């Protein structure tokens, strides 16, 4: 079954002359990790927020497991909310600073009808273990944790309802390099143990190549190319993708920036 099937999606911020996401179509296959790359302002985050229905699209359709959720009302989204969760970019902003971790992890369960407090507590402890966090994390406030630990808490919160799809919006870009690797390894492990599919947004090509199966390249709100992550270097055809690849730091290559003038003009005239 296909978790997500998106066609001709257009998302426009109020008052904006040009849609931020413009005629985007794609499908997410069960069990895959689909990367979305592009420079800042290319519409990656807006696409992610439209997918999870934080923003309402102007037109087009989003189908989740063959059910049209494009304009579903909040009450009808209840199952969708349990199935699709999001990991946010900034681990400092994504946790309520005035809430203990217990509350952050158990409230979603109460909202979705788990009535027994002991059961909620047990589930919270379970996701803490799955994300390699200590049990006593429940008693603490977000500011008592490091950036990497907070991102683990963000992942634990996304796991708590037992989702099948996780949308990760630059989940490691706010972290330092050693922590990035730990979080990425955790996500890889969770994909196996929880049978997850990922939509993984990043501007970091080395992360995407390591982590993803397929990569969609976004530019000015459009998807210009979709390539297999493993063979991206060889297969990428679109000049914007080539420019991104050339702009990325590359181990063993002397010149790190090698964007010919003609390529640049082609890229930005789109």
């Amino acid at each position: 079954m296909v978790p997500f099937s998106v066609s001709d999606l257009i998302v426009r911020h109020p008052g904006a002359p040009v849609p931020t996401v413009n005629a985007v179509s794609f499908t997410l296959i069960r069990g895959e990790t689909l990367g979305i790359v592009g420079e800042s302002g290319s519409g990656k985050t807006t696409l992610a927020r439209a997918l999870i229905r934080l923003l309402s699209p102007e037109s087009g359709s989003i189908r989740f497991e063959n059910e049209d959720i494009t304009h579903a009302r909040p009450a009808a989204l209840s199952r969708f909310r349990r199935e699709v969760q999001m990991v946010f970019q900034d681990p400092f902003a994504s946790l309520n600073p005035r809430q203990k971790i217990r509350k952050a992890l158990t409230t979603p369960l109460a909202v979705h009808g788990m009535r027994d407090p002991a059961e909620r507590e047990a589930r919270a402890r379970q996701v803490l273990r799955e994300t390699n966090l200590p049990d006593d994390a429940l008693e603490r406030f977000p500011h008592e944790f490091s950036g990497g630990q907070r991102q683990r808490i963000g992942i634990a919160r996304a796991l708590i309802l037992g989702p099948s799809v996780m949308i990760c919006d630059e989940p490691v870009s706010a972290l330092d390099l050693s922590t990035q690797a730990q979080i990425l390894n955790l996500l890889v492990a969770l994909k196996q143990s929880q049978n997850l599919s990922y939509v993984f947004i990043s501007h970091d090509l080395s992360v995407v190549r390591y982590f993803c199966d397929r990569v969609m390249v976004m530019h000015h709100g459009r998807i210009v190319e979709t390539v297999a992550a493993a063979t991206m270097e060889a297969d990428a055809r679109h000049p914007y993708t080539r420019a991104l690849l050339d702009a990325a730091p590359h181990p063993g290559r002397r010149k790190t920036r090698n964007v010919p003038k003609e390529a640049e003009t082609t890229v930005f005239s789109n």
Partner: protein
Amino acid sequence: MEDASAATFKVTFDAKQPASLHRASSARHTGRLASVLFAARREGTLIAGAALLSVIFTLALVAPYAFPGDPLAITGPSFLWPGEAAGHSLGTDALGRDVAAGIAHGARFSLFVGMGAAFLSTLAGVAAGAVAGFFGGWADRSFVRVTEIFQTIPGFLLLMVLMEIVPPSLFSITGTIAFVSWPMMARVARTEFMALRSREFVLAARTLGYGPARIIVMEILPNALPPIIAIASVSVASAILMEAALAFMGLGDPNTVSWGLMIGNGREFLRTAWYLSAIPGGAIMATVLGFNLLADGLARYLNPHRADRASARTP
């Protein structure tokens, strides 16, 4: 991001005030008492405001025991100056009523009106501002229209007109003052809710399926409280001033003693017995100053970017 701003703050703190930094670190070494004293010095406005208000609250609490009976009853000869006769420490007014009893009983009235009006206007203002700021759209547009109407009418003028209509009593005065002052609180709450509703932890709550009521009360409100508490404290002071001005103009309850009424009664004798206006005037000033100091101190104390809060955070 917060850590970075805390770090830059520390650097400037370092460079400009090495002496106070030294005090801070030495306080940490000499133990608890010293650090409490150091905190008290830094939170000076908070302590001063709380001290001033505790005197006035004590006065209000002991009034029925220290000055039993009706404070508007005639108890001695008229125009006794403060200290002139035993038993009338603050003198008597034109009718021979004890000024000290009026001040003490008036404190009860002023504090009740001030805190009651502030409580009601905070409740109404935060509710309206939260709905407008969180939902936006037509809720916000109609909210802005309503508060603009209030903004174009001078608040005190509206209060005077309303007090001509409703019979003056403790509760009607409190309610009417709350009615003219809720828009200020509502605007503060609206701004806070608008800023917080797009924060990532609120987006996370929405993706988890939280309903709007839960998001407003459990997620946003606790983070919007510091400015709301500070403004509420200021609005106690402004409600006390409004009540005093009403009573001064004869629009208050003539059968209840209040500081504004005492000033109004003393106005005719300003040249011969100025203490009749000056003493209740001083009481109002002290109370308003107390609440303003408290508001200032609270705003500083509750600010999450305080230096010591930042350094307590683990890196």
